């Protein structure tokens, strides 16, 4: 088995996965590999997360963190009631988070359902990044989000649609049913197929975020295995949650995923992103995540390419904190715009 980082770096994603798991991506091979990964002690993990959460981020560090958080947000609307108007409003907010302060950075992306992608692209206009580093990305949830309960053909069509409409990023869900019943091969193959469908006509790829739905996986060991599985299959990002089940992102879950990303980087030299989504509503919480990223995988992960917050209400709380830091006093919810 190949394991030295330099040798690993020579291989493409598929070859690398095969080299690591020691054969084809069958249920048995994947189980052997995933169950060979060291386990997680829940009490210890939660203790570590709580310790990281107790860092005291003040003055200049807080100011930096607040702007950084804004630039890492995937501003999200995922409602059955979404309309083109709602999406336009969301895009407006993404481009000008604080109407009263032009120095406020833009968010990283807007995240919408597939059928809203054309409206988001249109609303962004020239501010759409469209593969460049400048501007705001459009992320689309796909693969029968949030449940993922559809045939592979439907899931792939969903992805294809969004990519064709100009989505820069695809947020897919894994088949939790298959994962929990041990059909790791099926989960792996689906991620590989979705990744291939993210390929555009010009040969470039839409960024693939793989949603593990950690609230349904239930144990930290499962989260860790699903994280490895998603990374082995070629996910660019691993994401905690859809935001549609009761338990969404938590700091311990995100920490455990960051540890996988750190170990993958040690093993291969590649950098995979992490996106906690759902349930992060305050600046105070978001700062705990920023600290956890910096102290676990390193500060270089604090870039939109490698870390995102999936959130909607977080932005306004961060903006109120930002105004407080700029003006010295609290403003209030009437001084930030709703989208």
């Amino acid at each position: 088995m190949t394991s030295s980082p330099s040798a690993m770096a020579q291989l493409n994603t598929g070859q690398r996965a095969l080299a690591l798991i020691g054969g084809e991506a069958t249920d048995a091979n994947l189980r052997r590999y995933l169950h060979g990964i060291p386990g997680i002690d829940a009490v210890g993990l939660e203790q570590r997360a709580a310790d990281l959460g107790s860092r005291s981020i003040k003055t200049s560090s807080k100011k930096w963190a607040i702007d950084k958080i804004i630039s890492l947000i995937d501003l999200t609307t995922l409602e059955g009631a979404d309309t083109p108007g709602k999406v336009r409003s969301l895009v407006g907010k993404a481009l000008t988070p604080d109407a009263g302060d032009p120095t406020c950075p833009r968010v990283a992306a807007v995240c919408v359902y597939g059928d809203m992608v054309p409206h988001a692209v249109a609303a962004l206009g020239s501010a759409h990044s469209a593969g460049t580093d400048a501007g705001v990305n459009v992320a689309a949830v796909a693969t029968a989000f949030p449940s993922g309960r559809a045939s592979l053909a439907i899931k792939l069509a969903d992805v294809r649609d969004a990519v064709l409409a100009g989505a820069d990023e695809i947020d897919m869900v894994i088949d939790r049913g298959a994962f929990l019943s041990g059909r790791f091969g099926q989960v792996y193959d689906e991620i590989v197929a979705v990744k291939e469908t993210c390929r555009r006509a010009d040969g470039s790829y839409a960024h693939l975020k793989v949603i593990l739905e950690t609230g349904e996986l239930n144990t930290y060991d499962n989260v860790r295995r699903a994280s490895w599985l998603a990374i082995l299959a070629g996910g660019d990002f691993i994401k905690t949650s859809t935001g549609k089940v009761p338990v969404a992102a938590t700091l311990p879950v995100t920490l455990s995923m960051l540890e996988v990303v750190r170990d993958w980087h040690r093993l291969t030299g590649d950098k995979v992103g992490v996106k906690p989504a759902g349930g992060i509503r305050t600046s105070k919480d978001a700062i705990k995540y920023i600290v956890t990223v910096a102290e676990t995988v390193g500060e270089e992960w604090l870039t939109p390419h490698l870390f995102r917050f999936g959130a909607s209400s977080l932005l306004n709380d961060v903006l109120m904190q930002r105004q407080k830091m700029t003006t010295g006093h609290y403003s209030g919810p009437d001084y930030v715009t709703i989208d």
Partner: protein
Amino acid sequence: MSFLDYAPAPESQALLNLRSDYGLFIDGEFVAGRGEPFQTINPATEKQIAMIAHANSADVDTAVAAARRAYAHTWSKLSGSDRGKYLFRIARLVQERARELAVAETLDNGKPIKESRDVDVPLVAAWFFYYAGWADKLDHAGVGPTPSSRGVAAQVIPWNFPLLMLAWKIAPALAAGNTVVIKPAETTSLTALLFAEILQQADLPAGVVNIVTGGRETGQALVGHPDVNLVAFTGSTGAGRAIARSVAGTDKKVILELGGKAANIVFDDAPIDQAIEGIVNGIFFNQGHVCCAGSRLLVQESIHDDVIDRLKARLSTLRLGDPLDKNTDIGAINSAEQLKRIRELTDIGEQEGAERWSPDCVLPDNGFWFKPTIFTNVSTSHRIARDEVFGPVLSVLTFRTPAEAIAKANNTPFGLSAGIWTEKGSRMLAVADKLRAGVIWANTFNRFDPASPFGGYKESGYGREGGRHGLASYLKPAASRAAARTVNAAPAARIAATESDPKTPVSRKKAAK
């Protein structure tokens, strides 16, 4: 700017209202000591915090006499529930003044504020709450019905957890109905004297707790005093041995919590990320000034290199510096004397051929500091693998099988604590069963709870603190009158009856303890 250079976040000292001089706390009042006062300094800056009174043997006499009076006339006459009320009151006052106590502890001891704030002071309150609950339930302490207290307890505590060790000693003693004369460590008297203010606030009857500050000879005068019934000591094995010698032949009950050289055993199936945290917490918590610190890492050979790589990466994120900064992980070494000892032992470690490693970090100019240090290629015969360093120094050894891990872990004159890291529950229990140590942590380290007994095997001491066992140390079986009332007083009851009288010399049962 690098985000990880967090902006300073110092805890405010504004809450502190320290005096420039502190007297002895005897019979409910602060009084001048008859010895030469000494200064207590902040080990992070070497600046003086306050002058502390020095108790000579005459002061110790006064203090013991006050404790005896309070025992005879007040404390032993109170009902358990009334004693409990005082302890609850003390616990609540500790919580109310928690921030202030934490800042004072950090100033005087050098430990990071996050530890004094999140560990020491909350545990102090927890200890008083826990034993407050026991005060009216002594029948269930495990020494038979209607047990009695022992009398005046002489207690000598160390500098590593000044206020917490005080709580470990005072809370069970008072709950059981004893009165106390306690001597804090010379370098860390400050929080004990703030605690004396709390006792005044709580209206604790005069003389129930007396605090005498001073050096080694103050402690010797106290434990050697003819009118104390019990000696409780936490500190080095050398000092503990001297105390055991000095009280030999008297009827004083002795509880000793001494040194340790704990093995932290990491099996190849350990939850690796949590094990790394546990190793770090085991030896770098409180700058390694912990008697139960996991100073010997025993790691299975198959994962040795991986563990060391991860450990080094983790150590590089530790933040050493101003103990009052809320983000500081490693504070100052408590005294110049301790720093010297750590330097000596680590130099010997290098000379003996072990490989030394420390992360890059800048040490402040003033104060006493030592970088977190790990030694690899350590063998069991090296002094850094045998002697207690009592500093942020980890010795790494390897093993191949569980049997070898157990043999190496037990191969020490100490036996205070040990750690086991494995995902396999059956192995955890099987190994714990064979380790000769008083406290064994599994998949965690350095966790304390008032309900759990704590104490050592072999040269780590005898007697237990914490939990029901810790309470029982401060009690003896039923008083003679109660035993006589039993219709068929069995021989065993008669033995118990002789032991119960505080004036009766030597009891054979104590040797059996």
